[in-house]
């Protein structure tokens, strides 16, 4: 039973990691690739480390596995947010089928994203005038 649960979690986690790789290779936009990479790989690594914790039923191994899972759950959104903000401020082009761009609507003075954006730090601060 323990072996079966560990094997199922391991293959499930590897499947989510494969989904992350396919998404990064195939999606048309940086931001779509970023969300595929972040969410799918976090779930995948969580499943695989839980499989490790179930396979070795040891307190030290379980503690470290839970620690790494918590670390990934804390740092993956932070890293993705940092990369996305920096890429948007640097003017990475969106997909041509994009419908809404909320950060563009919120900044009245940034009419061209490829131009000078020295006020990009205050965009999400809510200048909704």
């Amino acid at each position, binding site marked *: 039973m323990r*072996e*079966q649960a*560990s*094997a*199922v979690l*391991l*293959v499930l*986690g*590897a*499947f989510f*990691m*494969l989904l*992350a*790789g*396919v998404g*990064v*290779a195939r999606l048309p936009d*940086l931001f779509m*690739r*970023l969300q595929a*990479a972040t969410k799918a*790989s*976090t779930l*995948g*690594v969580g499943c*695989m*480390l839980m*499989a*490790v914790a179930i*396979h*070795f039923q*040891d307190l*030290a*191994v379980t503690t*470290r*596995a839970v*620690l*790494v899972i918590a*670390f*990934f759950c804390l*740092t*993956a959104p*932070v*890293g993705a947010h*940092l*990369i996305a*903000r*920096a*890429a948007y*401020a*640097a*003017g*990475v082009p969106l997909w041509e089928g994009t419908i809404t761009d909320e950060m563009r609507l919120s900044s009245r003075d940034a009419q061209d994203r490829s131009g000078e*954006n*020295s006020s*990009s730090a205050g965009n999400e601060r809510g200048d909704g005038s």
Partner: protein
Amino acid sequence: MSLSGLEIKTLATGLALAMVGIALFLTFIRLVRGPTLPDRVVALDLMGVLTVGMIAAYEIAMEQPVLLDTATVLALVGFLGTVAFARYLERRGRDA
């Protein structure tokens, strides 16, 4: 259908290593031909996470629980690298 535990373990770890290997290959393709620099940063970040998963599968396959320390250190270094790259991108975008 009398699969023993050892056979299940061998099958699952082999399958998981193959799938994570394919994912690493696809991510490496994006790393090579990413149009912009943030694409390459995203691919490099994902490669770090995939390597942690590969270490987990290899750890079960080899029965070596010591390798989990390597995964911990790799996760920490990967996050620091991502933050450093994001800082660099932000500064470069502001300058250029």
